[in-house]
């Protein structure tokens, strides 16, 4: 890739990070953070965006960022109070900045900035137009060097200049050097240098750090005065300097105010002098060396908090990581095959080979975990998009919302993160649009006018659990039931538990909003959210308390590459059931199984009856159902808490399997989620339990209808 294009990519990546940082910081300030570290971080974020944008000549972005930065600088300097209103303006400005960045990245169209820019100017009070002027002034210096070249072209005639230079000690203390200045002057033309040593004291009185010498330079150049002045740009203020056009009588002028340099001094052995001065400098150094030390430790001690974030990192192409993960997957399979071969060969468990294999297995598992960890990322990247969404939805609905996020550092596979954005977006929208009441209704209910939506993430037993909780009115169960009945989703007289009622909102075709609102009504219901969570191998549930609010809980696997599975045999086939869905396994007794007519059966599990589904029949491996008493039942809980028992011939055991996509390698098969390769090298299908349950219910229904139709005919 073209290095500049690569840097451009880096810039936009960095912009995203800075924008996130900016938003986090502003929200922290809104929540009352007033520490300088937060304010500085916010300032730096905008500043960095501006700096990079300047390098890529993204003028709109630079101009807007500059105006924003000016406001933040005022806040940073304590001249502008970050009031709630001011922070709202800044948050809107952050959104506009984000839009500008994205427009610049994607070559997108026009972004309306004036409204926000005007709001920012208003914060500064009466300094309208300041940002534009500032922006111009800021970049003006950039053109400085080319200017000199242009001037040279205009004025080609050679001129003679007399330059008198008397450095002060400060010049040297800042690591500037007269010799280098002379070298620069020489680049401009012919120079004639005279050293002026009259100020030099006797060696005994000489301070090695002081400046005693002066120079007079006669320069013949075609260049302008500006070009000469530029040579001394860095030393301006640290020396006495005069630059004069050399008149008819150069020498008279040059030394008019100074006595001519005494011959003796000019003859001084400079090299010897410098050597002595250096020797003398050694002991003096001890002073500056010791003095700043306590200051140094103080400066470092002041800001230890931020340092934890800056652990060294490298950036790697995702493809490389994925290739590595693939290979490790193969390694795991290979290792399992090897173990099985060794077992089959009848080698003793205690033998060196078997023990070596055990170690290999452990190592493989560790490598696998470590590689998975590379893909793991904090959910922060998704969570960070939500505050803006919450602000927008709040503005559209006229509700007051505070979005609280927790556990942003919780890590999960990158793919999971990417596919979390849409469901989370929808759930946050829902929580504000449907969950929270308007400010008046809230106050009437004795709650603060501002509603709280809490978005949190945590690791729980090998999965990531994400919750979206609101403190709104809770689910209106009467209304939910009425709507479900109206849409034919349930029988009008159906008796449902609270939990079952709440879960109705996950059904396809359900929407509680009596009029389709602009926010949530986009043809996407909670059923779609549930399906996308399921597609990630996760589950979603709801808990609601009237008047107190609702909590949606999603539980997702940390990675999509491996799965803890129960390996079972069904009609001679080896299948894998995801362990997360399995509640328990049981040995059915004939007396517990009851037929409901047709092939439909239920099994008594303690005090309740659950549908018994023969996996072999559901997948079409066999036509007649297996005798329940000869098989093993897996009690599973599908999404929404419904239970069923899956009947298999036998259980082989629990195993971690590497998931191989069936869709990518073959095609989608109903009832099968994916495939894996077992230790013996055979392919085993991974069951899609929810589909099996849903399909067999439908099949039961279809069969009984057929039978009834046949009976009627």
């Amino acid at each position, binding site marked *: 890739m073209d290095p500049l294009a690569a840097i451009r990519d*880096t810039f936009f990546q960095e912009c995203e990070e800075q924008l996130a940082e900016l938003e986090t910081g502003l929200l922290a300030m809104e929540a009352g953070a007033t520490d300088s570290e937060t304010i500085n971080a916010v300032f*730096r974020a905008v*500043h960095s965006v501006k700096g*990079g944008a300047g390098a890529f000549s993204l003028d709109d972005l630079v101009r807007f960022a500059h105006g924003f930065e000016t406001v933040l600088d005022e806040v940073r300097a304590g001249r502008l109070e970050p009031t709630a209103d001011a922070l709202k303006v800044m948050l809107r400005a952050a959104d506009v900045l984000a839009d500008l960045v994205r427009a610049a990245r994607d070559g997108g169209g026009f972004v309306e900035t004036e409204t926000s820019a005007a709001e920012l100017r208003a914060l500064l009070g009466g300094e309208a137009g300041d940002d534009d002027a500032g922006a111009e002034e800021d970049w003006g210096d950039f053109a400085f*060097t080319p200017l000199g070249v242009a001037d040279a072209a205009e004025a080609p005639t050679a001129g003679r200049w007399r330059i008198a230079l008397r450095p002060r000690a400060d010049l040297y203390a800042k*690591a500037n050097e007269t010799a280098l200045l002379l070298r620069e002057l020489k680049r401009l033309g012919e120079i004639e240098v005279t050293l002026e040593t009259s100020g030099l004291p006797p060696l005994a009185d000489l301070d090695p750090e002081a400046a005693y010498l002066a120079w007079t330079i006669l320069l013949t150049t075609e260049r302008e005065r500006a070009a000469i002045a530029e040579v001394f740009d860095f030393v301006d203020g640290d020396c006495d300097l005069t630059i004069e056009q050399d008149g008819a009588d150069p020498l008279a002028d040059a030394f008019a105010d100074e006595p001519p340099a005494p011959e003796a001094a000019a003859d001084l052995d400079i090299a010897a002098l410098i050597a002595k001065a250096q020797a003398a400098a050694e002991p003096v150094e001890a002073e500056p060396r010791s*003095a700043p030390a306590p200051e140094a430790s103080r400066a470092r001690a002041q800001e230890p908090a931020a340092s934890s974030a800056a652990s060294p990192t490298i950036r790697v192409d995702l493809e490389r990581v994925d290739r590595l993960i693939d290979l490790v997957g193969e390694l795991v399979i290979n290792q399992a095959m090897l173990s099985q071969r060794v077992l089959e060969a009848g080698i003793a468990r205690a033998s060196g080979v078997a023990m070596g294999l055990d170690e290999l297995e452990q190592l493989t598992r560790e490598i696998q975990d470590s590689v998975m960890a590379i893909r793991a990322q904090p959910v922060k990247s998704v969570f960070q998009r939500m505050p803006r969404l919450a602000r927008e939805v709040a503005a559209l609905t006229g509700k007051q919302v505070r979005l609280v996020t927790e556990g942003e550092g919780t890590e999960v596979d990158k793919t999971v993160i990417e596919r979390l954005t849409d469901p989370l977006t929808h759930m946050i929208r829902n929580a504000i649009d449907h969950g929270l009441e308007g400010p008046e209704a809230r106050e009437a209910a004795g709650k603060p006018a501002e509603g709280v939506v809490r978005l949190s993430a945590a690791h729980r037993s090998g999965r990531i659990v994400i919750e979206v909780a609101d403190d709104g009115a809770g689910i209106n169960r009467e209304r939910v039931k009425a709507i479900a009945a109206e849409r034919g989703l349930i029988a009008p007289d159906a008796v449902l538990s609270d939990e079952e009622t709440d879960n109705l909102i996950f059904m396809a075709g359900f929407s509680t909003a009596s009029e389709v609102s602009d926010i949530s009504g986009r043809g996407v219901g909670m059923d779609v959210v549930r399906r996308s969570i399921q597609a990630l191998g996760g589950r979603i549930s709801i808990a609601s308390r009237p008047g107190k609010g609702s909590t949606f809980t999603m539980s997702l696997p940390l990675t999509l590459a491996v799965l803890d599975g129960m390996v079972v045999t069904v009609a001679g086939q080896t299948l894998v059931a995801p362990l997360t869905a399995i509640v328990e396994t049981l040995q059915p007794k004939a007396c517990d199984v009851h037929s409901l007519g047709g092939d439909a059966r239920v099994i008594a599990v303690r005090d309740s009856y659950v549908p018994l589904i023969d996996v072999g029949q559901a997948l079409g491996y066999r036509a007649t159902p297996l005798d329940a008493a000869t098989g093993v039942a897996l009690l599973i809980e599908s999404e929404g808490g419904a239970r069923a028992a899956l009947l298999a011939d036998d259980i082989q055991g629990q195993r971690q399997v590497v998931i191989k996509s069936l869709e990518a390698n073959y095609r989608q098969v109903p009832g099968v989620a994916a495939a894996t390769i077992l230790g013996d090298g055979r392919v085993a299908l991974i069951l899609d339990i929810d589909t099996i349950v849903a399909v067999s219910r439908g099949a039961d229904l279809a069969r009984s209808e057929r039978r009834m139709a046949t009976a009627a005919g």
Partner: protein
Amino acid sequence: MSLTILTVDDSRTMREMLRLALADAGFEVLQAEDGVHGLEVLELAAPDVIVTDINMPRMDGFGFIEEVRGDPRHRVTPILVLTTESDGVKKNRARMAGATGWIVKPFNPVTLVDAIRRVAA
């Protein structure tokens, strides 16, 4: 022998641009992400010129310059301040802290290398 330049900047974009421009000009490039990191690098290396940003987390450019000037090993190493602030206040503060010179962002490789050449022995 080619000159070694230490750049101190918290922006990855800037670091990459600096590296590209300086490496193209034949310099050896060392990089640090903020003032504290810069001082750590200076424990082990003796660059010929230091180029530093002003606005950085942990330790800003002003603090960094003061620290470097207080270190006998690096007190005469030229330090160029790299910043979008071209206003006199920032420039002056950097100079008070001991900066040798400055480069105004956005820089082009020519102005950058030119400024380094001006202060490098």
